[in-house]
């Protein structure tokens, strides 16, 4: 009988342990949702800038714009992304007037979230011009 009374405290410790494990396992599920979505957006935005930076090396991007080579520009952007990514690119001059007279896009947007990135492209020609490129990306689900 005295032995049982002595075990009372230990059982409560075990209870407390199980209670804490229960709380821990339930609360551990909470933070798994939101940051991943935010990270995906950041990754898409970063990818857009990386692709435009790569195209802009040696002034290639500004040359395409100055020659109005919109089809070539669309093909270059298309080859840089996987088919699971939708894109829409718009070129503006420094007065924010649209320059491309044809749509530079991979089709209709089907993703729920569209990430929009703007890129400042400086020409390398002696006649200096600045172009603003808006690249919208979305993951095709």
């Amino acid at each position: 009988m005295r032995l049982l009374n002595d075990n009372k405290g230990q059982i409560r410790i075990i209870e407390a342990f199980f209670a804490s494990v229960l709380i821990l396992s339930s609360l551990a599920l909470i933070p798994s949702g939101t940051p991943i979505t935010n990270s995906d957006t950041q990754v898409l935005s970063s990818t857009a800038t990386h692709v435009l930076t790569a195209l802009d090396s040696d002034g290639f991007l500004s040359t395409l714009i100055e020659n109005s080579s919109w089809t070539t520009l669309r093909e270059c952007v298309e080859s840089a992304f996987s088919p699971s990514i939708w894109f829409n690119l718009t070129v503006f001059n420094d007065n924010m007037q649209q320059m491309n007279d044809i749509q530079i896009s991979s089709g209709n947007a089907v993703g729920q979230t569209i990430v929009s990135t703007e890129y400042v492209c400086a020409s390398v020609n002696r006649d200096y011009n600045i172009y603003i490129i808006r690249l919208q990306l979305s993951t095709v689900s």
Partner: protein
Amino acid sequence: MKRKRVRSSNSGQALIVTSLVITMLLLSTAYYVFEIKTDVATGQAADDSTFASIKLSSVNTVISALANVSNGGDNSVLSTDLNELASTIENQSYGENSNLQFTLSNVSPYQNGTWISWESNGTWIPLESNGTAISSACVSFLINFSGPSTTYSSQYETNVTTTLNSNIEYAGNETENNVNLTCTMLNENEPASFSDITVLYQNETDGPWFQVDPSNLQMNYNGNGTYLMSFEAYAQNFLQVSVQAHDLRGIFVVANTTLTGDWT
């Protein structure tokens, strides 16, 4: 005796509360570390790509201005173009508050960020006839970002330099008047190519300049930015050759080489 029993029965509750507090502390610490790691990773990725794109735009602007100045433009073009770029970046702001500041180099031989080793007096006159021509621009930049989660600052220097080295050898006698010209084009000390080239020569001091007809100019590319050229020209004891060229970026250079002596 009664008080003792109450204290004894409460010990389990105290343990539960203690374990709950410890669990909450551990959880909040783990969650905080997780959040910080996520913010650093995504924020850093965004900063790196934005920084790379602004740096590329600034380099392209310097190249454009140097192409303009080396072709006879005013050297205030560099600061004008960079101000326009800085203003555009500030207005677009890449989704964050971005700010680009620049300082033109005035360390000799640079003036207002540019160094051109010849001057224009209707015709191109190299400041030295040592066979080397330099068109260069040097600018220091400072980029500042301040976003909701990160503040980022980066300083870098951009030096765009086109160098042309020319060297001549003359094989002149009664039957042969051959000039062998070796030219090397460099961009930032790396081998580069000509976009176009014009060769002129002068066979007497202060005499007229004769342009070598492109059809009479034999040219071979020897690799590493080096071109071997030859043409025929008559000269007795003085020969000055002027090489005027654009690199693929449109930056212009003029190099003069003089050969004196009695070789007849």
